C-alpha cells in the first residue's frame, strides 16, 4: 500500500494512538462511573488520578487523540477525493501543522500546571 517513508509512519502511529486511546477510554469510563458509588469513592479515585504522572499521561493522550483525529481526516480525504492519495505525504505534514496548533493550548495549560506543582488539594 505504502512504500515506506511518511505513509508507513502515519499508519503505525495511527494504530498505536488508536490502541492507546482505547485503553485510556476503558480506564476513563471505569473512573467516571465511580460517581455511582458516591462522593467518597469517587473523590479518592479522582485524587489518585490528579498526580502529576497521570497528567503527563494525559498530555500524551491528548497528543494521541489529536494525531489520530487529524490523520483520520487525512485518510478520509484519501478515500473520497480524486487527489487525496496523490498528495498523502503533503497531507501528512498538514496533519502535523493542525496538530501543533491544537496541541499548544493543552501543552501550555496542563504542562504549566505540572510545572507549577498543582495537584488539586
Amino acid at each position, binding site marked *: *500500500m505504502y512504500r515506506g517513508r511518511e505513509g508507513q509512519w502515519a499508519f503505525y502511529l495511527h*494504530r498505536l494512538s*488508536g*490502541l492507546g*486511546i*482505547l485503553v485510556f*477510554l*476503558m480506564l476513563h*469510563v*471505569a473512573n*467516571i*462511573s465511580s*460517581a*455511582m458509588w*458516591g*462522593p467518597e469513592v*469517587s*473523590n479518592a479515585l*479522582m485524587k489518585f488520578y*490528579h498526580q502529576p504522572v497521570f*497528567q503527563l499521561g*494525559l498530555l500524551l493522550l*491528548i497528543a494521541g*487523540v*489529536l494525531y489520530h*483525529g*487529524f490523520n*483520520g*481526516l487525512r*485518510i*478520509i480525504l*484519501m*478515500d*473520497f477525493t480524486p487527489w487525496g*492519495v496523490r498528495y498523502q505525504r503533503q497531507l501528512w505534514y498538514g496533519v502535523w501543522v493542525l496538530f501543533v496548533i*491544537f496541541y499548544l*493550548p*493543552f501543552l501550555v*495549560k*496542563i504542562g504549566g*500546571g505540572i510545572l507549577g506543582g*498543582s*495537584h*488539586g488539594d
Partner: protein
Amino acid sequence: MAIKSKRYQEARLEASTNLELYWWVFMRISGVVLVFLLIGHMWMNAILTDLNSIDYDYVAKRLSQTTWKIYDLLILGLGLLHGANGLRYVLDDWIRNPSRRFWTKVVLYSLIAFLFFLGSLSLFNHDFGVN
C-alpha cells in the same frame, strides 16, 4: 477480513460482505463526528476547567444535564464501537493463530460491551435537568 483499500470504489470491490463495507463506512463517519466531539470534550475539561478541580461534584453536575448526557453518550457509544472495530483490524493482522484470535476477541468484546453498559448506567444514574 478487514478492508485495506484506500478508495471507496476499491473498498466496495474488496468487501467480502456488505457488513464489512458498512464497517468501513462507519469508521469514516464516526471518525469525523468523534474528532469534533472529542476536541470539544478535551477543550472543556482541560482548557476551560482546571483539570485538578475535577471532582465528584463537577462530574455529578455535568452528568445531570440532558445535553451532556447525550454528548457523552455519543462519545461513549461511537468511541467504543470505533475502537472495537479498530481493535478487530489490529487483532486480525497480529494474531495468526485462529483459536487464540477468537478467544482474544471474545474477551475484549465482552470487556467493551461491559464498559458500554457501565458508562451508560452511570450517565443515566444522575437526575436530568439539575443545574
